[in-house]
Each structure stands twice: as structure tokens, then as C-alpha cells.
């Protein structure tokens, strides 16, 4: 998550949610996100809320982190219950970071177990952790599997050494097939994360990364364009002219290549930056974000959403741990969305999915815009005819522009 939190309303210290959050909650899916704010090294492009091992102490330290996170799980269960929201079994759980696998697998397991104890878990639930190829072993993967994890998402990013170097990634490319193999043997589904558009990466570099990743036959691939965030080391390097800047046309070429090669390998897109081998292997936790489901985000800087109420935790792990130790909500701010804003978000998020947005759910001006979007080659005509607005390849690259055209003025 980005290091800059949004501006919102102050969050109450007891964390209690307004009535709006409880309305209809029994019928909505519920998930859990767990943020692990640690990394072995800080990558030059990353503006996520993460810290290297030596930076923190107290309840925020790596050793004590699981215990702190579990205290927020307890807090969450109480707040939801007190806000009139019935306990719902977890449908998806996602550990992200930072580098979750920097914590001992047993710690991740403890946090997961605490959550399952509170809420229960659906049969066939999806439980994912992100992992750095450097920080897993056959043993740690087995521990995760035993604890209930079903899926691991490796931050491969690129197969090209000079690209990894610009990204400050420390792993050697040859380690990736090995960790994929271990995860398979442990019985975990595998996803690979790739980044394209890194300064200095050629189209051929990217082709090589894609072909290499696909040769490991992952169940799922995420391919994200590199975003240069203000305040990162990479942004400073570009400003000083040490590395070339970002070119949107280059991004477009690389996205098109990714869609082609991933598609030829038998995976299909289900969200702008995500592809899966079968619809069942799509990342359900990721889909929950785009579909507006409920989830609670555990950890410093984590975002949560319950029934149109969004909130986010204080950013710094020490402040976060301190709030929880005092029995206070770690939330830094929140928003209670009105119907119009929820509708706008729904359109903005669903438009990114292969399942698309219902044309009849758009406002009048949005429905009127559809013909023009088809004419411009941004929306698939056959789907639109069946009542769903689904982006074409060109439309996916211009998804934000399409959304601006279908939103009410």
C-alpha cells in the first residue's frame, strides 16, 4: 500500500461502525487482509508501508509482530459484533507486504489460526501469502500448507538480471523455478508477479521474462506496469537523469505483448492486470476488492471495507502497536460512502473485470456513452449486446478513460 494515506474523516477510537456497515452484511462475503510491514531490503521503486528489520522495536518488531496482529484480529471480531454484524466465515485470506515470508512460517500460521478461531473459514476458502523467492524453503512452505494456506504468490518481477538490479530485487532468477517446484510439492497453488516497464527494460527483455515465467506453468500471473511514486529512490534517479523515465507507449506495447503471450499459454484475463489458467484459479481475494465485498485489513496502514465504510490504519508499526496495546482502534481515518459514491466506485472497479459492468446499472449518460465506446474499439460489442460492458484489449489499456466516460457527469 502507498505510504501516503488518504484524507478522510477521523475514525472513532472504539472503531465502532455506523449502521450502514451492518445493513445486509449477513449476505456479503467476508475476507481478511494481513499486512506484514517488513522487508529484508527496501526496493527502489517501492513506496509501500514497509520497514527493514532493524528499523523497529517494541510491539512493532518482527518478533512481536504476530502477537500484535492477533490483537487486532481480536479487536476486529469485537468491533464487528458490537456493530451488529454477525460473524461470517472467512472466504479469502491474503497475507501481503512487505515480505510476509520474512516472518517465520509459524508466525503466519498463528495469525491465520487466530482468525479462523474467531470467524471460522469456508470450505474451499482461498488463503494466499505473498513470498519473495529468497525467503522460502521446502520446510517453510510445508508449514504454511499445514497451517491452512492454499496459495503462494511469488514476487518474480523479471527474469532479466539488469532489470532486477534497477528494481533492487536481490533474488537470482534461477531460484524462481526451484521455489515454484517446492510450492507445488507442498500442495500450494502458484502465482507469479511480474513488473513491466522498468527503466532500461527492452521489449525483448520483457518477452524473455514472460516466456520464462510461463515456462514454469503458473496457475496465475499478475503483470503490473511499474508506477514511479513520488518520494521513492527510483523517482529521484529518474529526476536526476540516472535512469530513463517511464513511457506510456512502451507500457502499452508491453501490456499487449503480455496479453498475447499469456493468452497463448492458456491463461485468460479476469482483471486488467491479472490472468488465471481457469476461472477457479482467479485470485478470489483480489476479486473481492473489485467487487466491493467486505474485508478487514490487519496491520499498519492496512485498508478495510465493510458495507460502504472504508478505513485505514495508522501507518507506522510503532504507533499501530501502541494503539492496540491501549485497546484503541488503530484506524487513522475513514470514509462513509453515500449511495452515489458507492455507485461510482462500483462502476470504477467492476469495469476492470472480465465480467464487466451491467449496462443497465449505468446512469443515463453512461448508457448513452456505450455506442461511442464500441465505435472507438474500447468495449466489446457482443458483451454489450448481452447487457455487460466488457473492455477490449485496447479498452483495458484505457480503462480509466473509459470509466470517466461512463460515469455520470
Amino acid at each position, binding site marked *: *500500500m502507498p505510504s501516503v494515506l488518504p484524507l*478522510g474523516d477521523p475514525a472513532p477510537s472504539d472503531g465502532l461502525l455506523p449502521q450502514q456497515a451492518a445493513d445486509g452484511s449477513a449476505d456479503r462475503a467476508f475476507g481478511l487482509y494481513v499486512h506484514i510491514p517488513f522487508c529484508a531490503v527496501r526496493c527502489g521503486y517501492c513506496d*509501500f508501508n514497509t520497514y527493514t528489520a532493524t528499523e523497529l522495536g517494541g510491539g512493532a518488531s518482527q518478533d512481536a509482530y504476530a502477537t500484535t496482529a492477533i490483537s487486532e484480529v481480536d479487536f476486529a471480531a469485537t468491533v464487528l459484533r458490537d456493530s451488529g454484524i454477525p460473524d461470517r466465515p472467512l472466504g479469502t485470506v491474503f497475507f501481503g507486504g512487505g515480505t510476509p515470508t520474512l516472518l517465520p512460517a509459524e508466525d503466519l500460521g498463528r495469525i491465520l489460526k487466530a482468525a479462523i478461531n474467531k470467524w471460522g473459514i469456508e470450505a474451499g476458502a482461498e488463503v494466499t501469502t505473498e513470498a519473495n523467492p529468497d525467503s522460502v524453503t521446502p520446510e517453510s512452505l510445508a508449514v504454511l500448507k499445514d497451517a491452512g494456506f492454499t496459495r503462494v504468490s511469488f514476487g518474480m518481477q523479471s527474469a532479466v538480471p539488469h532489470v532486477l538490479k534497477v528494481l533492487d530485487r536481490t533474488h537470482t532468477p534461477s531460484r524462481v523455478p526451484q521455489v515454484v517446484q517446492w510450492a507445488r510439492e507442498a500442495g500450494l497453488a502458484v502465482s507469479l508477479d511480474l513488473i513491466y516497464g522498468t527503466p532500461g527494460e527492452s521489449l525483448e527483455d520483457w518477452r524473455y521474462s514472460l516466456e520464462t515465467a510461463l515456462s514454469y506453468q503458473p496457475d496465475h500471473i499478475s503483470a503490473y506496469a511499474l508506477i514511479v511514486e513520488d518520494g521513492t529512490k527510483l523517482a529521484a534517479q529518474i529526476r536526476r537523469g540516472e535512469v530513463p523515465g517511464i513511457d506510456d507507449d512502451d507500457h502499452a506495447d508491453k501490456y499487449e505483448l503480455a496479453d498475447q503471450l499469456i493468452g497463448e499459454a492458456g491463461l485468460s484475463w479476469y482483471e486488467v492486470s491479472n490472468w488465471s489458467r481457469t476461472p477457479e484459479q482467479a485470485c478470489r481475494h483480489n476479486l473481492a*476488492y473489485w467487487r466491493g465485498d467486505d474485508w478487514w485489513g490487519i496491520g499498519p496502514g492496512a485498508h478495510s471495507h465493510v458495507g460502504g465504510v472504508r478505513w485505514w490504519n495508522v501507518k507506522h508499526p510503532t504507533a499501530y502497536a501502541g494503539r492496540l496495546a491501549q485497546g484503541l482502534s488503530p484506524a487513522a481515518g475513514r470514509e462513509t460512502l453515500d449511495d452515489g459514491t458507492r455507485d461510482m466506485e462500483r462502476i470504477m472497479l467492476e469495469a476492470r473485470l472480465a465480467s464487466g459492468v451491467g449496462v443497465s446499472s449505468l446512469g443515463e449518460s453512461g448508457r448513452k456513452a456505450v455506442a461511442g465506446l464500441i465505435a472507438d474499439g474500447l468495449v466489446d460489442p457482443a458483451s454489450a449486446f448481452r447487457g455487460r460492458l466488457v473492455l477490449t484489449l485496447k479498452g483495458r489499456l484505457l480503462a480509466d478513460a473509459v470509466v470517466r466516460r461512463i460515469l455520470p457527469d
Partner: protein
Amino acid sequence: MSPMARTAPVPAATDPAIIRNFCIIAHIDHGKSTLADRMLQYTGVVQSRDMKAQYLDRMDIERERGITIKSQAVRMPWELDGTSYALNMIDTPGHVDFTYEVSRSLAACEGAVLLVDAAQGIEAQTLANLYLAMENNLTIIPVLNKIDLPAAQPEKYAAELASLIGGDPDDVLRVSGKTGMGVEALLDKIVRDLPAPEGDANAPARAMIFDSVYDTYRGVVTYVRVVDGMLHPRERIQMMSTRATHELLEIGVSSPEPTPSKGLGVGEVGYLITGVKDVRLSKVGDTVTNLAKPAADSLPGYADAKPMVFSGLYPLDGTDYPVLRDALEKLMLNDAALVYEPETSAALGFGFRVGFLGLLHLEITRERLEREYNLDLISTAPNVEYEVTLEDKKVVHVTNPSEYPSGKIAEVREPMVSATILAPNEFVGAIMELCQSRRGVMGGMDYLSEDRVEIRYRLPLAEIVFDFFDILKSKTRGYGSLDWKADGEQVADLVKVDIMLQGEQVDAFSAITHRDKAYAYGVMMTTKLRELIPRQQFEVPIQAAIGSRIIARESIRAIRKDVLAKCYGGDISRKRKLLEKQKEGKKRMKMVGRVEVPQEAFIAALTTDESKDKARK
């Protein structure tokens, strides 16, 4: 040296023999206002502690730019050889756009102080005003200012002045407005050298209006010079050009604050207040007479101010249109030369076509609108007025390219000016090159001194309204100066160049140019727009055309990527806020057909920065 006058002559009872009326002719930054301030101080009409720099320039813009837009008159007592005199200093506008106002100020005087920067020498506008003063038979007192500057070259420029007006270089006074050096001697010389005003005290009253200013509290304040007879408070007066009559509510002199008097007699200079609210009812150059005992003939020289340069003014925010309308109405009260009418642009929305005396007048007006009325404005490229005769003999006057007729055109006439340029002789070649590239025809050339020349050209006004002066300045390293006056019209081979975005004509970018320059304009504008307009979801051709013939073409490639790769850890709020911001940005776009054009692109495309940059290279 004379002492400060012990007793000041009383207005309405002052013998013309002890009156001296003078103005100061000077270039913009040659220190006229500073010298005037020093005179106010030495004659005791302004106490030293009340002095603010450039006392007479009232508007902020005037003080900041160091120029005088509106003139004023101040009555100062000065004693010489035991006699108290009344000196009326009439402050004249210093810029080329206001030549007519200058000529009326000169007509109110018997003499002029020709003030020249001792480090720079005479400039074109000063020379033009000097000629104007000499035509009015004014006695000229040549003065070199800023004598305290290390770069001053008094000998050189004294010789230049002496050769221009005759006389001995040693007779040229040397002063410093800054230190006050020589100012008392100048006041003495004004009393000694200038003739006293003459007039018939028993004739029907005639007074010439040389300035007219709108004051929020008092209405129009009219400045006059009485030629014959006498004006009294509470009389009914008549404006001889319009026959309008008013009651004289107050009459007095500025010293320098307005001081009511029992009247104004022959040779006196002062102000009138009649309660009217519009300066158009009290026009510069008009003659004021007494309704009960009117004069038979008005004073000579009256003319209506005629706008020469036109520009469309549009509020950046369309909802500011009523504010702009009210602001123009108020400015008009104080600016008889300003004319405007509403116009609509497909690209810019509702605005006004405004006529100005010249470019500075345009700039000042625009700046006042933005500053005093808190408006953000787009002004279209300045235009002159063309007379287009169609083949069916119909005549159309065009002040806006979008009014250019599309039918068969027999003839187009454009306004001409005669321009005078003064510069060091090393720049003659560069100046000739510039003038020729602007379709100028040389009228003559004279040496003012060994190394300074006066070059005269006849040029189309349209060629000098845009960037001519900036380029002249850069080609002469700042030494060149320019003066111009209207000089008839000529038939020219002019065409209208249209600019189209994706086939849609954008009226704000159309221009009327000489046929030989149409291509250059087309290339310049299409290139500029390609850089200024952001990429759209489709390719946007930009074309320049004369009629249906395309003369230049560029295109903006379609944007291919406009999507955020991901939402970090479910931070949907950030994404939504970004989207809201983008949608807000979209509202600030002007739609040209399907093309979204940011306001900034209009502003940038219509400003002259690029031409200035080019000239500097």
C-alpha cells in the same frame, strides 16, 4: 536660488502675467515622475513627510510600471525676484498609445520641459512628442536628467538636444530628480523663459478639456485650461461638441489635493465637477463654455479617440462573464477610448471584442481587469480593423477573423501607420530587415547625432501589433525605440487562415494574414497546438487551411495507456479520489468537437512568448 514662495497667488484672482503653464515631455523611464515629485516638494505643495514615490501617478499599475496613463495638473507657487508666480504642471501620458491625450495636454501649455535621460538620449516617442510640442508653438526647455548616474553622458546628449531644437548645448539644463540637483534652477528658468498665457478676460468663457477622470465618490473630474473668460461655481456649462449641459457643482485647482476656488480665469488650469458619471460626457479635447453666454466657436483640435487594435477578452471561467461585463462598464467610465461589444466564440464561450488605442492600452486594460476585478482572462491575438469589399460591392468591416466573409472578395484594405524608430546606427541593418519582413516601406532616415539615427517606415498596423516592438527591442539590444501614428490604409493581398482540430474549425485560432505569411502562421500554430494539446483516445489531425485548401498539417497520436495498474492492498479511496480529480479536470477542458482542449493550451497558443523566444535566439 529662489526661496519657496511666501504667498501663493489666489485662484480666480490671478493675473495671467504671473501664470506659467508647462508640461514635461519624457520617455517612460527617463524620470519624469521623480522630477515632478521633487518640484512638488521644493515648491512646498507637498510636505516631505507626505511624499510617496511618484505622487501624481495614482493607479497602482502606474506606480508599479513607472508610467503615467492618466495625466493630471498641479498648481505650484514659486517666487522669483520678489514676485510670486503660479506654475501649472500638466502631467502628460508617456506612451505612444495615448498620443491624442498628449496633444491635448500640450495644447493646454505655453511651454514644455523636454526631459531626457543623460545616460540614454532621446527616444522615439519623446521625439514625436517634441515635434508635437513644436507644432503647437510651445517654448521648449531642454533638460538632461539623472545627471548623477555614472553612465551619464551629458555632453553627448546635450549636443543631440541642441541640434534637435536649436541653441547652444551649454543652455541644456542638467538636473537629478533623485538628488534634487538643478531642480530649483529649472523652476526659475520656467518662470523666466516661458511666455505667460494670453486670452480675452471679457470674452465668453472657453476652456479646453485635457483630461477627464472618473472618481468613485465624486463622479467625473474634468481637467481644463481656461483660454478666454471665466468659469464660476454653480453656473450652467455646455460641452460644445455634444451640446450637453451640466451644472458646475465644484471648480478648483489641484495643489495637489483638490482645492475648491471661486472660479478659474484666463490662463488658469484646474478641475470641474458636474456630477456626471461617464467620462464620455466630458471628452478630452472638447471645449467648455458658459450656457448663458456661450462662445461662438469651439477651440481647435478636437477629435474622437478611435480604437486601432481589437482583441477578444474571455473569462477563463464562463461563470465570470457577468463580472467581466460589469468590470468593462466601470472601466469605460474612466476610459473614453475603450469600446467593446459582446461576442461569442465556439471555442472560448461568451466574451467581448474590445477595441484599444494600441497594445499598451490593451495590456493595461487587461491587467486592470485581472487585478482590480479578480478575473482570469484569455485574450485572443490582437487584430486590426479590415475593410473587406465583396464582389457584389458590399463592404464589411472586420475586427474579428471569424467575421471574415466567405463570399467572393474583391478587395481587402488594411490600416497603415507611419512609424519612427530611433536607434544607434549599428542597428540600422537589423531594423531595415525587420521592417521589410513586416511589409514596411522606408520613408527616410536622418542622423540625430553621429551615431544615432531616426528611421521612418510606413507599415501595416497589423504587422506591428503582435510582437514587433519586442523583436525591435531584442534586435537593438534594448536601445531601439518606436513611435507610430495612423497613416491611412492600403489594399493588400490578405487571407484568412483557419485552424481545424479533427476537422472542426477553432475560431479562436483563426487569423487574417498576408498571403505570403499564411503558411508560416499555419505551421507555427499547428506545431504549437500539437505540443499543447494532450493526447486523446483517438488520433487528432490539426490542420491549417485557407478556405478549403490545407496548407499545414500535424497530428496528435492517440493515447494508448490510461489505466492504473493496481490498487494497493485495497486502497480504493485513493483511486476514487484520483478519478474525481480527473473528472474535475475534464470539466475545465473546452470541447472542440470530440477533442478535449485544456484552457492552458488556449492561453499558451494565444500568447506571444514563442515569438519572443525566437527573436532572442
